């Protein structure tokens, strides 16, 4: 991939990266024919964010990485990569100084080296060159469509910001209650805390205050403010309107924005699943217990299929046991009800994150095999997924020998 940006576009890109940095710790870069996509997922897999920069955004854009040493059209591929957010954030850290000095920016993903190359041509002939090494080529995808949400409303990002000002900055989650003619926001109080001891805040927004307002279902949705603030930071700086699509408690919320044909962004946030009344007190205790028990890093890294192929990527993002906050989803979009067990009441449902799966028919075999209750079934399936695969991929990996066996005979 190779692209060239002018000064104003660099600023937009920098703001997008800042916004992504507030959400997740790793940046996924995926060039496509239509443009460049930057994506991230947060640690608990409850927020997915994707910025799509279309071709008109760039001065020059090519999604294919060419073999520069030996021009061989068969070798050209599309490289996707994953970088720690810290490294790319350090390049785009100060938007003010980027604004003042950068004239053009070239970003390249060469074929032969695992580097992300960023080159700023600044005023006074200064050239800043950054080589960011990446080690993994996984990708993350969320399957969602913009249609099919019963409720949709949109308004300027400043409007959302002003509304959120009424909530104290330490409020973590806000419940949005949709009614036919208004939206009612209130701060969400954790089950474990006595609500009569907390300050409760409510804000009512009338239908007329929105640019577009279309609510089909009266419902209540609760999600984290942290990611929404990251979205608003980007949208407000560029004075964009924000669309919000909601379905119901437990289903993800989709925020999207768009600037003509230059760029667009989508943010998928998981919401709290509706609490099951009878088991609330018991579940909160078990939930607490589970949190302390599973504070170790999830098994994801060890089971992840690391590939060194540049095009096929198997990011394993079926869900992580991050305390009990996350329900392990099944790979299809609408099966979250399977995982609604008593232990996980009113916890954030993780998004149904999917990645290109090389064995698409496998899931069908698993369902009838396993007897234990849904959560355990999902967990077991996840942990043993490699064993349950019909075939195993064994690839001869070329590894460089750094230190030969000291006991080897010559």
């Amino acid at each position, binding site marked *: 991939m190779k692209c060239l940006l002018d000064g104003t576009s660099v600023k937009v890109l920098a703001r997008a990266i800042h916004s992504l940095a507030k959400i997740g710790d790793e940046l996924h870069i995926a060039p496509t024919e239509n443009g460049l996509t930057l994506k991230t997922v947060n640690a608990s897999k409850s927020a997915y964010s994707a910025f799509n920069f279309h071709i008109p955004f760039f001065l020059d854009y090519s999604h294919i990485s060419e073999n520069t040493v030996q021009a061989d059209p068969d070798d050209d591929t599309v490289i996707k990569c994953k970088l720690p957010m810290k490294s790319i954030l350090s390049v785009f850290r100060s938007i003010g100084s980027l604004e003042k000095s950068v004239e053009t920016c070239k970003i390249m993903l060469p074929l032969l080296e695992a580097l992300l190359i960023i080159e700023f041509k600044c005023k006074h002939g200064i050239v800043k060159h950054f080589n960011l090494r990446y080690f993994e080529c996984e990708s993350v995808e969320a399957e969602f469509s913009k249609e099919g949400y019963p409720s949709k409303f949109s308004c300027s990002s400043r409007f959302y910001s*002003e509304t959120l*000002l009424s909530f*104290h900055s330490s409020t973590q989650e806000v419940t949005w209650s949709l009614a036919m003619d208004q939206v009612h926001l209130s701060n969400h109080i954790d089950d474990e805390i006595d609500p*009569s001891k907390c300050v409760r*805040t*409510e*804000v009512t927004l*009338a239908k*007329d*205050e929105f640019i577009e307002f279309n609510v089909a279902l009266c419902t209540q949705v609760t999600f984290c403010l942290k990611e929404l603030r990251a979205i608003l930071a980007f949208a407000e700086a560029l004075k964009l309107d924000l669309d919000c699509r909601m379905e119901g408690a437990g289903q993800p919320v989709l925020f999207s924005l768009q600037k003509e044909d230059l760029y667009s962004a989508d943010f998928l946030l998981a919401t709290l699943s509706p609490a099951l009344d009878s088991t609330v007190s018991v579940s909160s205790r078990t939930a607490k217990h589970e949190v302390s028990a599973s504070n170790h890093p999830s098994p994801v890294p060890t089971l992840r299929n690391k590939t060194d192929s540049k095009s096929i990527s198997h990011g394993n993002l079926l869900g992580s046991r991050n305390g009990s906050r996350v329900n392990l989803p099944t790979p299809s979009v609408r099966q979250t009800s399977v995982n609604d067990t008593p232990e996980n009441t009113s916890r954030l449902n993780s998004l149904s994150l999917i990645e290109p799966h090389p064995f698409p028919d496998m899931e069908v075999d698993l369902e009838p095999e396993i007897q234990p209750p849904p959560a355990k079934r999902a967990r077991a399936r996840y942990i043993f997924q490699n064993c349950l695969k019909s075939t195993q991929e064994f690839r001869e990996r070329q590894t460089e020998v750094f230190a030969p066996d000291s006991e080897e005979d010559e």
Partner: protein
Amino acid sequence: MKFRGKMIDPNCIKQFIGILGCMTKLGKSCILRITTTDLYFIVRESQTISASPLIWCTLDEGHFFSEFGMEGLSTVDNEIYLEFVAENVARTLSALKVSGTAKSVKIKLTKKLSSPCLTFEIDLPSGSNHSRLVVHDIPVNLVPRRLWNDYVEPEVVDPDISVHMPQLRLMKSIIERMKNLANMATLHVTSEGLLTLTVETEAVSVTSHFDNLHVEKQKEEEASVTIELKRLSNFLAHEQLNPQKVVCDVLQSKLMHLNFLSDSYSLQYFLPGINDQ
């Protein structure tokens, strides 16, 4: 017990928020006393070495509220004493302050979730003639009648010397730096209008002089008191009222008293002196 008040004047709202903001940063819990004519905010700082500093603020309801109604504990004791966690109110108000001018603010004593709350209903203007309603419910405790005597209005101070303080902002920044040297400082006022603040450490002694201050009252030629700079600095840091006049009364070795003078409210800060061994 009932209480209901409504404020519509933007200046009054701003002032009220300023006062509340000032109070609520200074102690863990704050007492609100409501009578038929006034609102009193009382904050006693916790964790004190000696007698506690006290903030006493009186608000004239007639000035602030366009509508005011209250019904106290009984016809004999027609007052309401509420206790609330200062932080809760501070948080709510910081949100209010940032969101610009409110059209009206209604404060009510309500019972929600079977416990008493102070409800702030704020009417915010928003684009094109709409108004947005924001409701904050702050949990409060009713103070029982037998404890009312703890919150009696302090006696009027009969100072040895009383001067007008120099610009508070100036004092604030100087005290801020001096407190890093030592916590105990000696405040010395003379009848010529000279106020000095002295800090001493092993290595150095620093004195700030403010002169040409207007002297209000003088019983003695001079008076001095040892005070804790940390507390004074804390108070001044959160003070956002910009009063026109602040009077400083000093009672030899006993007390430093700051009195904010204004038409509509009175704020008093009592900082007891520390007795050196």
